[in-house]
């Protein structure tokens, strides 16, 4: 984390909050994992996903660093570390591990990360709901792609469609990055919706592949 990122992070109102330790009642920082007075494990508290894993908020994440942070926290908080502790401490550690998993699952995936950033910005994330798509260009593209998928007759042709859809999804990551950098939430929303669509298409293409293989009677290995 750079110096400026540190400052941004520390300015987060959640980061400075203090609460009494459940075990010894001494004050503990809300983001502390353990009480510095008695050593008892602390509950997850209210932190946003970025603060929870100690990374700077934003769409462009250093994924290696995100993972390193996540693994470091899990190493300390995973229920396996508390097998011999009291039931209460086990339950608290488990809720910590749950929160960290939720944060990591959300942040590591560009689409979920985008949806979360839109949510934090007070923008009801269209990507998380099955809303009607108001994107005529996408609707036409989608129709054509679906048709191509249903008509595909060989594994090679199917793989070509998958590569095309994959390339579109990668391009949309760049678009999302640009949109968030410019605080353009409308553009971000649009890109996220498109990405969601292409993800779904890829998923369907995998099901299609299994059906096709059954029909062709080969393992494709």
């Amino acid at each position: 984390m750079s110096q400026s990122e540190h400052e941004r992070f520390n300015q987060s109102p959640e980061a400075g909050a203090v609460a009494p330790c459940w075990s010894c009642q001494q004050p503990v920082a809300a983001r502390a994992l353990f009480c510095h007075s008695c050593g008892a494990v602390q509950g997850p508290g209210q932190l946003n996903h970025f603060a929870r894993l100690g990374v700077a908020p934003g769409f462009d994440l250093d994924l290696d660093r995100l993972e390193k942070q996540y693994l470091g926290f899990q190493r300390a908080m995973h229920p396996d570390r508390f097998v011999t502790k009291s039931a209460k401490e086990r339950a608290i550690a488990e809720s910590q591990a749950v929160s960290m998993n939720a944060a990591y699952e959300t942040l590591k995936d560009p689409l979920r990360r985008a949806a979360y950033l839109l949510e934090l910005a007070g923008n009801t994330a269209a990507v998380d709901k099955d809303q009607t798509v108001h994107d005529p260009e996408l609707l036409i593209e989608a129709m054509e792609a679906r048709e191509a998928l249903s008509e595909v007759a060989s594994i090679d042709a199917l793989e070509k469609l998958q590569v095309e859809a994959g390339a579109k999804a990668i391009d949309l990551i760049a678009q999302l990055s640009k949109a968030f950098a410019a605080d353009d939430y409308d553009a971000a929303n649009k890109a996220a919706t498109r990405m969601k669509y292409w993800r779904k298409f890829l998923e369907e293409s995998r099901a299609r592949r299994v059906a096709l293989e059954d029909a062709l009677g080969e393992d494709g290995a």
Partner: protein
Amino acid sequence: MSTLLQIHEPGETPAPHEQERGIAIGIDLGTTNSVAAIAEQGKSEILRDDHGDGLLPSIVAYTGPTPIVGRAAAEELTRHPELVVSSVKRLMGRGAADIKALSGTLPYEIHGDQQVGMVRLKIGNRVMSPVEVSADILRAIKARAEAALGQSVERAVVTVPAYFDDAARAATKDAAKLAGLDVLRLVNEPTAAALAYGLDHGAEGLYAVYDLGGGTFDISLLRLQQGVFQVLSTGGDAALGGDDFDHAIAENVLREANIQAPSLTEAKTLLVASRRAKEALTSAQNAELIFHINGKDLRQSVDLAKFESLIESMVARTLRACRQVLEDAQVTASEVKGVVLVGGSTRVLLVRRMVAKFFGRDPLSDINPDEVVAAGAALQAEALTRGGDTLLLDVIPLSLGIETVGGIVEKVIDRNTAIPVAKAQEFTTYQDGQTGMQIHIVQGERETVDACRSLGRFELTGIPPMAAGAARIRITFAVDADGLLTVGAQEKTTGVKAEIAVKPSYGLGEDEMADMLRDSLTHAREDMERRLLIEARVEAERMLLALDAALKSDGDLIAPSERAGIDAASGKVRKAMQGEDRDRIGAAVEALEKASHPFAQARMDRAMEQALKGHSLDEVEASMATDRAE
């Protein structure tokens, strides 16, 4: 999220000190064989019997009052096929509908036509659940470990196929509980195998664990880095394994010899011969089967090429699952740094060849594939109890969801989500004035309820009547580090709550579990009851004899009315003694003591009087002691 805190409200006392709780072992509860191991300072050791055998065949024979487990049970297989159970793991957490799909391939008789709950096996006169049979295997493994270690073992890490659903995991944990084992953690078999390899080799990077056991196939993709074992994705087939190879050989033999409908005994001997042939074909081009059908000893040979043609489609099925897992993790086969082989069926040459071709590298197999899982489980048991640097991050193997209107599944937690996890989703009512809601929990990847597995149902009641769509029902799914699910539901506007730890439709109900635990204690308790009854009778008899003697010598001390009371009470004691009710005997004895109390008092006074007529205190005490002894 504090959901889990509400669900797991802790009411237990803290765990006692480590040293007092003894050692913890690792157990691989396998379809074909079970293995136990112990680890000390990062080195694992398989626990063997007197003959040096590490594998305990997961076969139980119910030929006598005490179940026989292992090789001895396997020997009963041909003599009493109807009393011997093998491959019971395939039935863990399974219901009648699953069994239909497996019908014809199962070497046991299913009891009755049970529509709900886990299937029951009919074994001679007994009806048993797969959980009880597994518990018998675990008891034998526990006994073996205790004999090898020279101390009692109460805690264990038990492995399960990564592909096991919630019902099968819960069933496994119940079996361990019945066997008197505290399960520290259920660990996925492939993860345990990687743990064994990872620690031995200091490996880093992407690893695939290809686990082809007797009855299940698992493929998992793990990333190893800095002591963290992260399961990226997992898949497989819960009903595919080396047993199917045996069946393929056996069916081929029956076809070629034109034999129809062999008896259960004949089928079992043929399967044993088929298994031997399969094993022989790992180092020979040809194998001969010798078996007994229709009163004739038959011989038939199968060559390697034929065997491979019989099983090729099954091996291909495993590779499809491999590709699915790679796609789930968004990696290609070439990125995989190593492939770990687990399970005895990976000794089959075609399996090795096809796996090597698929991943473009020779798989690792330098740890015995039958023992590698138990070795890893032991390492994890040590890490959990003594502290360690490794960390296993697991995922749920199948999506979890609930049924919505029209039998459609709404997924709440997607497969391959890291555990522990808790997720909530809001649902609403679909009828005006609806006051209750059936919550049906399912597991699987399909869109419709009937294509998924039903895990359990519960009802949220007391929703205040509102217009359709106005109620806000928040359903929370929480999966713990063992992969076990707890579901809660709450109506947000009123706070009405309902909650269940998912004791799945295919699992055992709490009542059944309690019954089984009770049954396992019944013998001990019956013996104790018996002893207490005998003691009560002896006590009553002694009292009656003493009273008779006293009445003979000092009967003049009491009035006739008092005498009648004592006689009546004595009669009641005699009557109670003929019955089996210990409490009734006790009560009658107490009543007699009360009725004869004035008499005892009068005798005491007379004794004192006589004592004071020139006798020493010692003599008095001696005479009283004699009285008591009567």
